[in-house]
């Protein structure tokens, strides 16, 4: 069955396409699916899946990748209130809160990017700054207002990587430059998470799940962006892919 690739579940977002189109759509930014495909894995998504479907569906996949999104995690999940300016996606929140916990319990490889990192943190009981840039002493982590995606996704600031951490191994250093395109950010770290990458202003940008049975990391930056030409991003994604391949072998032999 070598033709069958390990399956990576990418929970989708829900939105209208534009103001003149009131229909509901399930959407996924293609760069995540493309990165997963380029790693030799097969992206899969389950439209309309809710928290109750997680146990059945998780058993069918070899990894979970939580993507970034235009929407923010609803602050009610960490005991605050959403800002009037927040774009919310309650169906995604409901799915991913359950999915993070279930993936960790089942030992399914889990990787969170941007909103995905924030989801891991909130699902583990942590909280978020709703606007990092409004906090005294913090950098503005948002992308520049530009038409040019390459400029928006350009490396923007350093992150300091814990010596001996997987992050430091992937970077081959304890400091590396990353892109930065976010307004929310980790405030209180969730239980069982270890902060292993920090921005110069102290913001937690990379976490590991402490007692994970498989790969379980989250990053605030976007390693899927032009990962092939960035060795740090490439090694991060390859480590996730390797974990998915191992999970796939176990699942099929078991």
């Amino acid at each position, binding site marked *: 069955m070598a*033709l069958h690739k390990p399956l990576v579940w990418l929970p989708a977002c829900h939105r209208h396409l534009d103001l*003149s189109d009131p*229909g509901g759509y399930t959407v996924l*930014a293609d760069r995540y699916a493309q990165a997963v495909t380029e790693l030799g894995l097969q992206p*899969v*998504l*389950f439209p*309309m899946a809710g928290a109750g479907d997680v146990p*059945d*569906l998780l058993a069918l996949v070899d990894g979970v990748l939580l993507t970034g999104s235009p929407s923010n995690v609803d602050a009610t999940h960490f005991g605050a209130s959403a800002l009037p300016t927040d774009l919310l996606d309650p169906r995604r929140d409901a799915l991913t809160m359950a999915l993070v916990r279930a993936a960790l319990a089942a030992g399914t490889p889990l990787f969170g990017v941007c909103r995905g990192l924030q989801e891991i943190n909130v699902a583990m009981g942590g909280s978020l700054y709703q606007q990092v840039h409004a906090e005294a002493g913090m950098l503005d982590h948002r992308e520049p207002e530009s038409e040019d995606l390459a400029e928006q996704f350009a490396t923007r600031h350093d992150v300091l990587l814990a010596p001996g951490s997987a992050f430091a191994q992937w970077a081959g250093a304890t400091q590396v430059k990353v892109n930065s395109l976010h307004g929310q950010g980790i405030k209180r770290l969730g239980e069982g998470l270890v902060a292993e990458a920090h921005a110069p202003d102290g913001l937690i940008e990379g976490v590991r799940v402490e007692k994970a049975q498989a790969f379980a990391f989250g990053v605030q930056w976007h390693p899927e962006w032009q990962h092939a030409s960035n060795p740090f991003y490439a090694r991060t994604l390859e480590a996730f892919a390797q974990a998915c391949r191992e999970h796939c072998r176990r699942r099929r032999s078991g």
Partner: protein
Amino acid sequence: MTLPADRVPCVWVVASHRELGNEHGQPQQYTVMDEVGTRTLVNLGLQPVCFPRVPPGRVAPTLDLVDGVLMGGSATNVHPRHFGEEPQAAGLFDEARDAVSLPLVRLAIERGVPLIGFCRGSHEINVALGGSLHQSLQALGTPVTHWEDPQEPLEQQYAERHAVACVPGGELERMSGCPGFPVSSLHSQGVKRLAAGLVAEAHAEDGLVEAFRWHDARQFAWGFQFHPEWGHQQHPRYAKIMGSFVEACWARLGQRLG
């Protein structure tokens, strides 16, 4: 391989691709699925699944993972090159979808996987099997209005717009239990030459093919120009059509599990 839950049929919903504003307001490519079709599958007890950006070379092994295929409508048209024509007007195309859906139609029929197509999905079935399409019914000036008014609210766009007549004694007449019924109509392409191997099952008053199936009725492979997935709970004929697809997917699951 155990993607199918072995309890509930998984149905591959073929996705579309659109350029949308990304999380930072800039246009980027997205995989998109209309939720009407997937919600209908869920309501009918099937598990929708999508394989975003599946490379065309991996369509065949991926088809092993499912018990049915659903190809829904889209704002985009099938590229006329697939039926040997140049585009007559600047249209919106989705060539990445064509690249997956056309081989998928042929494979599903070859392997006996139930297949249902609505609107663009029905065009894909016809074109994949060698048929051709009218590129613009508006330009053709058909006596029946087959297209929606973009100014109308969505409910109105999906309302019943014209009647179709089932082929007397045909499978659709048997399935729907009536000789004809009113349908929704939101399209500018339409079947011109029906592919060999397909049988027309219903026509509009102007003669346009509105429903067709694979000639061998043991294989569930149907194309509908209208949208039986939209309002299937209020529209008994739509419910019969959707119910037949659901039965075929369950039968496929049963076969696959032996």
